[in-house]
């Protein structure tokens, strides 16, 4: 399956996010794929096509940072925007240090999301 628009993949165990976020991204004009877990994303065919990965930090099983590590191991350099419901200001710098494009705290605004995704795509 070929996509013309830049593919943005969303990985989050929270159903609300998986339902709401793709719709918003599509309104922005991106192609979107949503996955309930890191394992599901890795097992899909969209890893290499993904231009921006919106990734929840805390998930059961493989966590967001775990997936980031795994992708680096596979030399899949996908720009990542982390999202998290934990309000801990210390998380953001450490995620940026790890190479993330952005780290957003839930709930985030549509503009901050768009800025983050655009920044990720620019990396490409």
């Amino acid at each position, binding site marked *: 399956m070929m996509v013309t628009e830049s593919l943005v993949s969303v990985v989050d165990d929270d159903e609300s996010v998986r339902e709401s976020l793709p719709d918003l991204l599509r309104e922005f004009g991106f192609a979107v794929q949503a996955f309930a877990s890191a394992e599901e994303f890795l097992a899909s065919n969209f890893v290499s096509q993904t231009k921006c990965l919106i990734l929840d930090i805390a998930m059961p099983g493989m966590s967001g940072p775990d997936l980031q590590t795994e992708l680096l191991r596979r030399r899949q350099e996908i720009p990542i925007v982390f999202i998290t419901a934990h309000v*801990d200001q210390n998380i953001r710098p450490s995620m940026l240090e790890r190479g993330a494009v952005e780290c957003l705290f839930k709930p985030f605004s549509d503009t901050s999301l768009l800025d983050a995704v655009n920044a990720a795509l620019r990396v490409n």
Partner: protein
Amino acid sequence: MDELSHVVDALPGLVWTARSDGTVDFLNQRWCAYTGLSLEQGQGEGWQAAIHPEDLPEMLERLRLGFASVEPVEIEARLRRSDGTYRWFLISISPMRDAEGHIIRWLGVATDIEHRKRAEEALRLHELNFRLIVDSIPAPVAVTTPEGEVEGVNQPTLDYFGRTFDELKNWKSSDAVHPDDLPQTIATLRKALELGRPYNVESRHRRADGVYRWFNVLGLPLRDSDGRILRWFHLQVDIDDRKRAEDLLASEKRLLEMVAGGSSQPRVLEELCRHVESTAAGCYCSVVLVDPTGTHLENGAAPSLPASFLASIIGRPVNAESGPCAMASYLNEQVIAADLATETRWAEYAWCPMALAHGLRACWSTPITSASGKVLGAFALYYDTPRAPTPLHQSLIERFTHIARIAIESAQKDAALKRSETFLAEVQRLSSTGSFWWNAVTGERTWSEEMYRIFEFDPAVPVTIEMMETRIHPEDLAAFRERGQRVRNVDSSFEFEYRLLMPDGSVKYIWATCHPRRYDGTLMELFGTVHDVTRRRLAEETLDKVRSQLAHVSRVTSLGALTGSIAHEVNQPLSGIVTNASTCLRMLAAEPPNVDGARETARRTIRDANRASDVITRLRALFAKKSAMSESLDLNEATREVVALSSDELQRNRVIVREELADDLPLVTGDRIQLQQVILNLLRNASDAMSGVDDRPRELMIKTEREEGDRVRLTVQDAGMGIDAHATDKLFEAFYTTKSDGMGIGLSVSRSIIESHSGRLWAVANDGPGATFAFSIPLVPAPRTPRSAPVRTAVRANPERSIGQP
């Protein structure tokens, strides 16, 4: 003649006349009346019939001589009275002469001397008897003149002294009486002679063999019928045995008094040796002791033995070879060495040559054995001549060994007691624990040394309750006095804490344990300990501070964690809501508007908002109490449990708890633990409310009572800082607190518990200082309202991700 006859007849005596040749020619009427002879019968030689035949020959001879020499004659002779009895008469016959000097007549006069004669005879017999008696007395008797000159002594006197009569006459300048007793004997005798009163003196008299023995000399005057002293008799009674027994008894008494009076052991033993030496003449006495290890001899006392002699005994091993005392101690038997010159024992230690070199020839050593049979030492007598003990010696040894045993055992007990006292004092000092004893009847107080030290009182001054109160911290004085009052009614031991305020301003924390002892319900005595727990208390207070800081930190941390969890759970749906709302807006703003998409996102927004609401509901359910247990319970008992559990904390806060629990309180149905949590909360609040109170007793009253309408009420009244009358309702709101470190949860939780029991919890300000909190619950709670039932709606299916475990 006739004229003369008339004169003679008239004379009162027995009178007669004779011619110059001696022929009786006239006898007066009294003569005739006495003899019963007529004048005719008596004339011539007829008168001779009236003369006692024994006296007649001498009389006739005397008369013959008298007539021949013409000299007056005086004869004593017995005349027969008319009744045949004879009486003594003094018969005087003298010549009558005429103017020229020729004998014309002889005149005879007989005077009755019967009385005198009898007296003379009696005296003679008396003296004879007396001498016989004196000689036959088996005790020494001396006879002296009224002036004290020795006239005679009886045979026992001569035998005892072994001296001649002439030697004894000079007793005052000899050693017959002991020189020490002589002055007093002479003085007593002189005084008795002067006053003519019997006397009694004790003195030592030297026996023929040179030994002095004690005598009691009894002096008695002998008087004639006129009361004049004729002689003195001096009876000497040998009282030596009695005197010795008395001395011995006095010695024993004195020694035992010394022991009882707490004289030191060396002094008592030395005195004992001196007593023995004065009692048994010529001996040297020593006491040696077995050392505490039981292996060597120690010095006891030996006042008359040379140090060099003792030095060779003291320190010797206790065995049969090293000497008589060591042997006696070792064998626990008496050891008699009657002649050290021929003695063969103890050769290994050359003991005999050593003793002989000190001039000793005999040694008798007797073990001193305790009541339990342990050998304490040995009692020894030494002599400078060879000799073996007599039964008298043995009885002496037995008695003094016994006293030595008492003295040594007493000293050992004293030492043990002193050791034990020292140990106790050390322990008390080390543990900062003093002990006291109070006699409730006499008010007498005994304090241990450490007790004085803790209170910083002079041990020389007897302690009074007033003195004690000057040390009690003013804030604790009321509680202390209240305790003091209660002592009289408390049966069992009890403990309590109070503080002392020392003169230098420092504060001591005291933990007191008291044990009352009663007789027949009346308090007899109180004893116990006082433990200075200042250091521990200060440590505890520091620890408490650290703990409360820690508790605060942990509360903040857990609150942070809780907040984090809540935020996470709520942020998830919020995130959905925001995203959906944004999408919705964008869909509606598109040309043409994507109404279906917007509707869908709006629907999802609502759904997510409901999810957020569910999270909150679930949180409430999590913090809600478990479902209440319903049981029948005794509120009094539940209250007592809580008071008991908190007593430590309450006492530490110096709160005086007064319980007024109704006797007739019915059982209630409810959750015991929950109700106890409420009571505990009320007690703590009351206690905390009084923490700043120092100007009045921190009194807390907890009361239960039955209310009308089948309800019970529990009231907790404090004397604390009180509450604002307008704020009584706010008190029960969550997070409302008047305490600097309070969470403000307790009262709101308490109220919800009481409400779940269909009861009411309220607070009122007291008329005086402090506040009163109370709850009232029905005996059986009303059926639960749905509002109070816990809501348990699971937010999500995944149980692993519940709140608190992110």
